[in-house]
């Protein structure tokens, strides 16, 4: 069932932060140089390990945001107020800092341009990150796989990669705002439901490859509704983050 991923050891690597991009008031992208990076597939993640001066250490998983065609590893980290790792990554890390990480990890929630389309990507909040890696990979390879992205965001100011989403255009990107919409917004202003999915999703007969990423409740609802709409469960791939993580 699984694609052929080499069962290689996920060595601990030392990454050097080259650039910190402030995506939103809550989120940064860390672009890192990782010597001996073996390459990755769109949708994979890394495990970042932090070590304090007293030896205390913590590790969390973060989706890779850059496409395989772009050198190095970029992760986008949203700061969780009660988090332990994300506030450090989002606020304290500067260009030149070093971080330990392992990866790439995960081989199920991945898309390769050679897999073809159509692609249906459904994101809740920062669940957009691995899906953006797929869209960037699609663009970098000149893939002609048709793609649609449905993104649920609480409010405009927390939307990641806004300029890139705008470039992709309305044919690809559908946004719904669940708490506050920008002035003059004429699109959806509700949680993702069956009607919205029916409007955005390809017909089951088109056999889209479906990737859903977001908070667990969001993923559960979207996956259940897509199956109810007639999409085969084996074409629906999910990645979730619970209330307590990744932080």
């Amino acid at each position: 069932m699984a694609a052929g991923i080499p069962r290689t050891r996920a060595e601990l690597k030392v990454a050097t932060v080259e650039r910190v991009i402030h995506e939103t008031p809550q989120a940064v992208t860390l672009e890192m140089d990782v010597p001996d990076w073996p390459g990755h597939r769109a949708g994979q993640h890394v495990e970042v390990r932090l070590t304090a001066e007293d030896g205390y250490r913590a590790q969390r998983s973060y989706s890779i945001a850059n496409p395989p065609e772009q050198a190095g590893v970029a992760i986008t980290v949203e700061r969780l107020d009660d988090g332990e790792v994300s506030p450090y990554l989002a606020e304290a890390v500067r260009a030149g800092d070093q971080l330990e990480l392992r990866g790439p990890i995960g081989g199920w929630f991945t898309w390769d341009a050679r897999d073809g389309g159509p692609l249906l990507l459904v994101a809740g909040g920062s669940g957009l990150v691995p899906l953006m890696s797929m869209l960037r990979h699609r663009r970098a390879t000149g893939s002609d796989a048709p793609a649609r992205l449905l993104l649920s965001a609480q409010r405009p100011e927390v939307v990641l990669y806004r300029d890139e989403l705008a470039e992709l255009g309305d044919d690809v990107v559908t946004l719904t705002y669940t708490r506050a919409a920008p002035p003059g917004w004429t699109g959806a202003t509700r949680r993702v439901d069956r009607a919205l999915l029916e409007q955005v999703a390809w017909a089951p007969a088109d056999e889209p490859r479906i990737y859903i990423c977001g908070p667990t409740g969001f993923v559960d609802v979207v996956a259940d509704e897509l199956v109810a709409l007639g999409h085969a469960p084996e074409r629906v791939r999910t990645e979730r983050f619970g209330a307590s993580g990744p932080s």
Partner: protein
Amino acid sequence: MAIINRGFGRRRPEPAEGARLPPGQYLTHDFPVLSAGPTPHPDLAEWTFTVGEEARWSWEQFLALPAETPTVDIHCVTSWSKFETSWKGVSVDSLFAGLEVEKYDGFATAYCDGGYTTNLPLSDLTGGKAWVVYEYEGEPLPPAHGGPARLLVPHLYFWKSAKWVRGIRFHEEDEPGFWETLGYHDRGDPWREQRYQGD
């Protein structure tokens, strides 16, 4: 050579029972969900549990088996641990009772609705260390957490506790399951931090 992340430090109080926390884990009181696809909703009238090729129980028969109520700590490879989770189900020892499991002397694959599989040495499934559970905290196991029934192997990382489990197959050789094929460790002992292949 470990990198020290200056300015980074513990932000959560150290749990009083810190020694109960395997290396690299943090304590949570939530119960996060991780799965690779949609949640299956099998029809209990058609649900069966199968061991090897010899033993099969219907849902009613399964509930009639002698039950145990383990209370255990669980550890997810994504770094969260949860203490004192309570379950009700059937020990794998009693599912294997009467079968000549020892003749396989090797490995098992737990298989599930939705196509998920995971591999375990038989020695990790026997000896009072593993159950097939159908209640969590006194309630029917919710589908998102693996209901109607899941494997519970709490001394290994929690992906080994396969959700929506429908049976156990035996092998002489260790055959990697779903996550194991994708780079996760074949055994997954949290106390040895066996997260990924080669750990």
